[in-house]
């Protein structure tokens, strides 16, 4: 692998930087503790810490949102932040999440949701996974790639299931 980066990467400063970073990949597991990974691709957690607020959209027709909001509130509190509720039309909400305009959506989604590839859906909150994969249940939708936030909420959701 190393020689491959060398062959392909000579020439530009950008390629040199990429090569350096990619070579580092093999050393990092040894250097970083297991808890250091993963990080957010777009820095959601850092933004929440800096701004002191976590932007949440609750989809219309979600009367049972409370357990999911409690879970997100606990996460925000850990990072010295508060929940900021964002009013958004249901149809726009997943797009806003994709664009990073909100940090999470609370709403009813099916396991086989058409949004599945575009946003990261948690397991059902405070209930077991229904047998019918098309049945919408309470879930937290996160922005794809925000893996630290996704893992933290996955852990919290798993605790509510217990």
């Amino acid at each position: 692998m190393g020689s491959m980066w060398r062959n392909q990467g000579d020439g530009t400063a950008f390629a040199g930087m990429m090569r350096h970073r990619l070579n580092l990949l093999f050393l990092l597991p040894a250097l970083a503790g297991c808890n250091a990974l993963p990080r957010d691709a777009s820095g959601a957690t850092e933004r929440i810490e800096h701004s002191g607020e976590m932007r949440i959209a609750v989809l219309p027709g979600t009367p049972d949102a409370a357990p999911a909001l409690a879970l997100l509130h606990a996460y925000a509190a850990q990072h010295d932040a508060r929940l900021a509720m964002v009013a958004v039309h249901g149809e726009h909400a997943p797009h806003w999440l994709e664009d990073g305009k909100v940090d999470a959506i609370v709403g009813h989604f099916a396991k086989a949701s058409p949004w599945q590839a575009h946003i990261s859906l948690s397991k059902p909150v405070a209930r077991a996974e229904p047998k019918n994969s098309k049945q919408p249940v309470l879930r937290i939708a996160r922005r794809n790639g925000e893996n630290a936030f996704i893992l933290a909420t996955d852990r919290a959701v798993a605790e509510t299931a217990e």
Partner: protein
Amino acid sequence: MSLHGGIPRAIAADVKRGERLEYWTLGWMVSVVLVMWLVMGSSQAMKAAVIEDLLSLVPAIVFLLSVHWERRRPNRRFPFGYRRANSLAFLVAATALLSVGGFLAYESVTTLIRQEHPTVGGITLFGHTIWLGWLMIAALAYSVVPPIILGHMKQPVAERIRDKVLHTDALMQKADWQTGLAGIAGIIGIGLGWWWADATAALFISLSIAKDAIGALEKAVSELLDGTPRALDSNRLSDDAERLIAALKARFENADVRLRETGRYIAAEVDCAPPKDIPTANELMGDDLAWRLASLSFRPEPADAGP
């Protein structure tokens, strides 16, 4: 062994060894596919790796099929036997290798263009939720081991029995372990928040795979077009073919010599009238490679030849 069927005794043991290695390959790679499938979650990169591993079974399967057909005797419908099944298998194996490279390149480029941020979340096992990336890395590390060992073992056998399918399969194993390492780098990159790392690593690997595959395809097409036998590892003429041409030219007053390859066997044609003493395969190829020369033919006396 008959003229156009069966495996020569000189390479029978190595061909058997090649078959055993391929059965081991199928067993190990199926276990790799299962392990990867269990941990792939919704990761597109892992799905691509599973598809790549499934495609990598193709050369092993076509090698086993071609050896099976090679053993069959010629018959009235196929008087030249089934040895060209090996040439056909070589084309299929090379195409499978190219498909793997092409698929990987397509996935990588589309991910980079769309700027897709791969999601790898948590998985709950025995009451603990851990990052799925660690399991993916473990599965990918497992996926790297069998191809390295099996590919290393296949290479010398492929050279001894002059089998391009087995050689291509060794290249496929190289593609497998390189893709596995790229996958590990990619998952760690995802963990570090570098969304582009996975696709970039895979793109570099796909270029290397495609280069090997295009080389193999060139040779497969040459063989099917009755080209002069090529070396296993490049498109240049093979050393034994060069030596055979030189030996025949020296023996038959610089007559035109044409060689072609059917599977692992060479057929030679000398453009002169049949001599009284026809040389043996051992004289022309040496004892070790005598089995390679399946036939030696001469031009019949022209009808209008004068006294």
